[in-house]
């Protein structure tokens, strides 16, 4: 009955909003004045540049898309977990190892939550991290090359969803499991889930200079669903908070069976304590298997290493490190305000937001005010840790971000709106509709100690009539709101690629100056690179043929190759000799069972071709590189397997 009331009030609120919108037409044309003002706010004139970068996860595209704010212009798609024929990522010999896992080559993933590296809780723009939800992985992307540099697989995890969030000095990137599983995996009846499955929370350390990832330890938590997480910051630095649902530990018809408990938990984890415990030899070494893939900017190549061991930590063995904070109705978003005082759990089946107080939590722990335990983990009393409740009037709260003026902004999926409220007083200050069914929202720096509270982007799950129809499948819609004033103003609406779950924004001035323009040819350490055209050659090793090829506007060296035979494996190792910004060359061979390559200045990439037919077969540059681009082509003569045509390679003869 209570729920029903909220629904009615939500309806009434939207009705009010609709009427007030309609009334504005009568207010002496203020509507059009407002509209033109908003147009100016998002208009980035030709030749001008945006104020912020927005990195949006691609969801099922597996990648990250880079947009400008406020214009909403798409700048780039960065391939992370998915093969990407545009650049040859995951197709080239150098990048295939990036997608290696303990399950073999997995050419796709579901990318969810990007997070930018921080120093002292402020965005530093060195790297962006993102999680693969399906085959649990964490990736690190360089923000000077905008290329994926590292992917680490997570064993014992499944549905890598409460990831990839970083601690305030980029000590750890943290990844929690959404689907608890048997650990170690074994053949057992599904309905024996309860009490037997585990939820692993992985803490991956980050080397401060190189960014290199290392799976430091995994906490083996009770078999709940660890949904989202955020680190403590400022006073709560050293803690990490995870929302949970399915504390019922149901294993079927979850939408009903895991929605029965009135309260689930936010798990508060003192990671500093556990890291110390592990450092001092605590934890259990467990045999397992997971891939660690690293791309080197200088060799332009990735290597994949299979790791065999992980340290697991039983949380009950580290007293004082883990506590449960009861939080109503299957909380989804788990967000921490810039001061680190408030931990916000959004019960997605509720109308209210629950805000826990870090200070109260510490007091309750010190006073040992426990309300029982779950699998040996103390449960704090809800009333003892509660800081306040936001009575929002909306339905289905999901995620919260923060501005730099003490306000919070929460999305409501069911009532399709963003609600602005005040930290500390919990009063609702404003609400704006979204179109439609908003998931995450993003304020640049809005999950750090220093938000840049000028815009909020709402990322919606449903598009319907927002754009020209494109058949049954449409891109998702995003709305941009100006939040610099007291009231939020909807100023723009733009489609986004894939399904952006979360996004991370950063002022352009922090990134643009250090964006790389070229790779230095004299820094190229690729074993098959040719640093001057006279080193170009073709070498046969049995059935393998290695073509050491260079490109510069507008020819390949060599461009005529003879002596290739049916059944050979021909590796084209192509080095782009340009040292000029934005002059890539491409490479594609007729009938090749892989994608083209796009090779950046100073870079070497390798394409495999297994010729199946006798003949003379052309290859060409796929990037319109110059006025003579159309002439940038060559031929390979393929002879029968038993022929004795000598191996030759020429240019301009």
């Amino acid at each position, binding site marked *: 009955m209570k729920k029903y009331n909220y629904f009615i009030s939500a309806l009434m609120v939207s009705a009010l909003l609709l009427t007030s919108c309609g009334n504005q037409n009568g207010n002496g044309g203020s509507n059009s004045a407002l509209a033109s003002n908003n147009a100016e706010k998002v208009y980035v004139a030709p030749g001008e540049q945006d104020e912020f970068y927005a990195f949006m996860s691609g969801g099922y595209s597996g990648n990250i898309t880079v947009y400008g704010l406020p214009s909403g212009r798409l700048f780039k798609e960065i391939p992370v977990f998915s093969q990407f024929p545009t650049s040859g990522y995951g197709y080239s010999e150098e990048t295939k190892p990036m997608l290696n896992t303990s399950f073999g080559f997995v050419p796709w993933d579901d990318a969810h939550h990007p997070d930018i590296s921080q120093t002292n809780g402020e965005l530093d723009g060195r790297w962006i991290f993102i999680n693969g939800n399906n085959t649990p992985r964490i990736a690190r992307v360089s923000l000077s090359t905008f290329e994926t540099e590292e992917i680490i697989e997570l064993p014992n995890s499944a549905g890598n969803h409460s990831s990839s969030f970083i601690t305030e000095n980029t000590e750890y990137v943290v990844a929690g499991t959404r689907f608890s599983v048997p650990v170690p995996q074994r053949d057992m009846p599904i309905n024996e889930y309860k009490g037997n499955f585990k939820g692993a929370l992985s803490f991956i350390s980050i080397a401060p200079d190189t960014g290199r990832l290392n799976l430091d330890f995994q906490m083996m938590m009770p078999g709940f669903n660890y949904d989202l997480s955020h680190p403590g910051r400022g006073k709560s630095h050293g803690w990490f908070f995870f929302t949970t649902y399915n504390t019922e530990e149901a294993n079927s018809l979850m939408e009903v069976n895991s929605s029965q408990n009135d309260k689930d938990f936010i798990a508060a984890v003192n990671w500093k304590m556990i890291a110390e415990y592990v450092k001092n030899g605590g934890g259990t070494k467990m045999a397992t298997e997971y891939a660690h893939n690293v791309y080197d900017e200088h060799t332009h190549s990735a290597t994949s290493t299979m790791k065999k061991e992980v340290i697991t930590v039983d949380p009950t063995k580290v007293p004082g490190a883990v506590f449960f904070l009861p939080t109503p109705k299957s909380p989804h978003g788990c967000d921490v305000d810039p001061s680190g005082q408030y931990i916000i759990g959004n019960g997605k089946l509720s109308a209210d937001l629950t805000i826990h107080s870090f200070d109260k939590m510490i007091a309750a722990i010190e006073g040992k005010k426990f309300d029982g335990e779950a699998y040996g983990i103390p449960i704090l009393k809800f009333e003892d840790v509660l800081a306040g409740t936001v009575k929002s009037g909306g339905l289905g709260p999901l995620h919260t971000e923060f501005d730099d003026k003490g306000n919070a902004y929460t999305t409501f999926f069911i009532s399709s709106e963003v609600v602005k409220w005040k930290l500390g007083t919990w009063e609702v200050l404003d609400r704006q509709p979204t179109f439609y069914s908003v998931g995450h929202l993003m304020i640049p720096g809005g999950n750090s100690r220093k938000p840049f509270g000028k815009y909020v982007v709402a990322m919606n799950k449903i598009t319907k009539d927002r754009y020209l129809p494109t058949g049954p499948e449409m891109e998702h819609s995003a709305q941009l709101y100006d939040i610099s004033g007291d009231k939020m103003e909807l100023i723009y609406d733009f489609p986004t690629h894939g399904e952006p779950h979360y996004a991370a924004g950063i002022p352009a001035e922090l990134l643009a100056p250090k964006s790389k323009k*070229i790779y230095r040819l004299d820094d190229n350490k690729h074993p098959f690179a040719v640093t001057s055209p006279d080193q170009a050659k073709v070498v046969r090793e049995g059935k393998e043929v290695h073509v050491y090829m260079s490109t*510069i*506007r507008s020819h390949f060296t060599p461009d005529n190759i003879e002596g290739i035979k049916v059944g050979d494996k021909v590796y084209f190792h192509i080095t782009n000799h*340009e*040292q*000029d*910004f934005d002059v890539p060359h491409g490479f594609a061979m007729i009938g090749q069972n892989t994608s083209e390559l796009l090779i950046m200045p100073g870079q070497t990439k390798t394409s495999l071709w297994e010729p199946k037919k006798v003949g003379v077969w052309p290859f060409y540059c796929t990037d319109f590189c110059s*006025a*003579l681009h159309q002439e940038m082509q060559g031929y390979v003569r393929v002879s029968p397997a038993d022929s004795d045509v000598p191996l030759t390679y020429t240019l301009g003869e």
Partner: protein
Amino acid sequence: MKRASILMIIGPLFLLGLYFFPLWNIMLGAPQYPEPLGMDIYIDGIKGANEFDIQNIDGLNHYIGMRKLPKPEEMWEFGTFPIVIGIMVGLGVLIGILGFAGKISYIWFLGWFVLMSILGVMGMYDFNAWMVDYGTNLDPNAIMKLANPDGTPMSYKPPLFGHAKMLNFDVTSLPAAGAWAMFIGMCLTLAAFYIGWKKAPKSDTSLTKKYATQ
């Protein structure tokens, strides 16, 4: 005369700037080069305004059949100019010192200035001749062979001074810091001469007499 001589000692020293700063700068901007390519011409060689500009200018020039920009060892000028400048600095300072010591008259100051001016004009003439050759002596197998409206083959000589439109490029050629240092230095020597002349008594004999009586 002492003040004039000090100026005459300082003036030529400004030419030392030519060893550190470019004499001339040519910038090439185009729609697809919003950050223009550029070359800085030093007395001992040509360098890119940015690290890879020379390679990129050569890369573009190959379409129209221009030769690659010369390396220092490919032009005698880049070996000779530093020596000539060195000699002129030494000579100028020496004249200044001798003037200070009262051994020679201010007329020598003008002499140095005139000699330096002649060398400068010769240098400019030589530079221009190289640019004419570089811009017109093209590869007969060039990828793009363009003609002027009157049918004559298009040449690509950059302007010696100022701006010119060449195909899609806006080319601006201007003296750079080294030339300005040289200009200031030469002005100082001219000023040295002027002051020397103004302060001098009516005739050289009276000047000698004055010093002799001191």
